[in-house]
């Protein structure tokens, strides 16, 4: 099976937001970046599928040159090669532009299965994977918790494709049968992540990252006209002091003010 996994590089969880002067994007020079968490689960799932069914895992990303770090990391964890649609403008691109950029670089590869995380921890549109499927002309399913590939898939024999477990709201799930090729967006927690070994890191240095230019004609579908700290919906009473002082005061307020204890 030929599997693609799309990954995005996003600011780390510890990152404290700082804005660019025009307040339409973040000050990237102050941020440290990491692999988008749901994408890390998608990568892990692709490696497990390759271990079970054979084939190849290709990591794909659209973004500025900094994105190479997460591509190398994915190669170190076991992906075979990478495709990087490289353009500085792609760091803050919307989902239509990102999906369009990925689609143009991925179309000729004829992947059997494309995996993405269900959404990114930066802009969080939750659209790129599904739009990419539409642009590639393949079916999709979202928020996937398990993948069962039919044994005949990819052999040229007749196949039922795969069965995927989709998460619904409130603790419900649903199995869905799908043909291949297809695209799935992966939910965090589908598996246990592996980390790169020293051997993997060494091997990754020799693996190919194919660079592709941003295609022409990608128009943004939306523009960020302002970024700001969110407006507080509640007046939060911050309780200062040492742990003992704060604890005493909190318990008092929960008893006397909120009557919650």
């Amino acid at each position, binding site marked *: 099976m030929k599997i693609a996994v799309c990954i995005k590089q996003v*600011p780390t*969880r*510890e990152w*404290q*937001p700082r*804005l660019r002067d025009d307040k339409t994007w973040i000050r990237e020079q102050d941020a440290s970046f990491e692999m988008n968490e749901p994408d890390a689960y998608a990568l892990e799932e692709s490696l497990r599928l390759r271990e079970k069914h054979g084939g190849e895992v290709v990591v794909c990303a659209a973004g500025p040159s900094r994105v190479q770090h997460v591509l190398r990391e994915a190669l170190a964890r076991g992906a075979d090669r990478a495709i990087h649609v490289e353009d500085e403008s792609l760091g803050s691109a919307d*989902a239509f532009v990102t*999906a369009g950029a990925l689609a143009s670089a991925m179309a000729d590869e004829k992947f059997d299965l494309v995996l993405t995380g*269900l959404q990114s921890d930066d*802009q*969080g549109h*939750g*659209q790129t*994977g*599904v*739009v990419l499927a539409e*642009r590639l002309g393949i*079916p*999709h*399913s*979202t*928020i996937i918790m398990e993948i069962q590939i039919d044994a005949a898939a990819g052999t040229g024999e007749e196949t039922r494709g795969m069965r995927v477990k989709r*998460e*619904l*709201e*409130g*603790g*419900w*799930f*649903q*199995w*869905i*049968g*799908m043909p291949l090729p*297809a695209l799935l967006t992966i939910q*965090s*927690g589908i598996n246990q992540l592996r980390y790169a070994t020293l051997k993997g890191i060494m091997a990754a240095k020799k693996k190919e990252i194919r660079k592709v230019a941003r295609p022409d004609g990608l128009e943004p579908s*939306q523009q*960020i*006209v302002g*970024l*700001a*700290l*969110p*407006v507080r919906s*509640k007046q*939060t*009473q*911050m*309780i200062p002091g040492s*742990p*003992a002082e*704060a*604890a*005493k005061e*909190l*318990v008092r307020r*929960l008893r006397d003010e909120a009557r*919650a*204890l």
Partner: protein
Amino acid sequence: MILVIAEQRDGVLNRATWEAIAAAQQLAGGDDLQMALLGAEPGAAAQELAAAGAGEIVTVTNAALEPYTPDGYVLALADLIGTAKPQVVALAHTYQARDFAPMLAARVRIPLVTDVTGFTGTGTQATFIRPMFQGKLAAEVRPTGAACLVTFQIGAFRADGIQRGASASPVKNIAVTVDRSAIRQRPEAPFQEARQAVDLSQAARIVAVGRGIKAQDQLPVAETLAKAMGAELAASRPICDSGWLPMERQIGSSGQTVAPKLYVALGISGAIQHLVGMKGSRTIVAINKDADAPIFEVADYGIVGDLFEIVPALVAELQK
């Protein structure tokens, strides 16, 4: 005209649809509203929608639209949008909308703004507010072009804010052609993994832990506090993903939605998927080392600091 796509399963309307209608009414600013309901037959949900008198109901019917599939819905809705040409298509940001709305937007080549919590202006002139960077920032977003799709975050708009009409709205049925062989997903019946042994929605108090607890063997820290408060123990998604607590104790969009008298969030940053499951709680306490954590946006009381120091102090205070 603003078109709201209602969501139903087995003839029961999703409650979030009412929130989307309330939001769409504000967004319409006096412009017409239409509600589309897809399924095998119009059913009782259409009557329920019509009774609100908020605008014309269009039932889009075909046997192939039951059960829901993204391919089926997009085939039917691309047709409807092409004919009706709404300025804005509005939906609740449910798992189902997340599954098909991006495909629909890509198919009809109209921008999609997701997870919207507010807006200024009306119709296509509106500027939408949506969370970015895990809720650390709020973005003002403007779609380009003459029309857009919008999904509204669950809980961001109040369903009881709907302006009801004096009389029931008319219901129009459109029987669409949907080529069943063009639907590539074959859904099976929904199921629950295990019977929910713990019904957190009934708990008066909840102590919930997040990534800040760091390790499974630190859980007794939170358990002790839960015991001292007479509370149930719950967790954010990463804790249940790691298997430290069973899935049935997970709070958030993929777990349970709760509104207890007291909700204590320990080391939970407050990703939006968690907040939607608990922000209706009457009193919320947040204890987190990061003063900028989004959980403080919804908290009534906040303590910035090390939970491993604060929680034992709280337990000691409660036991006095």
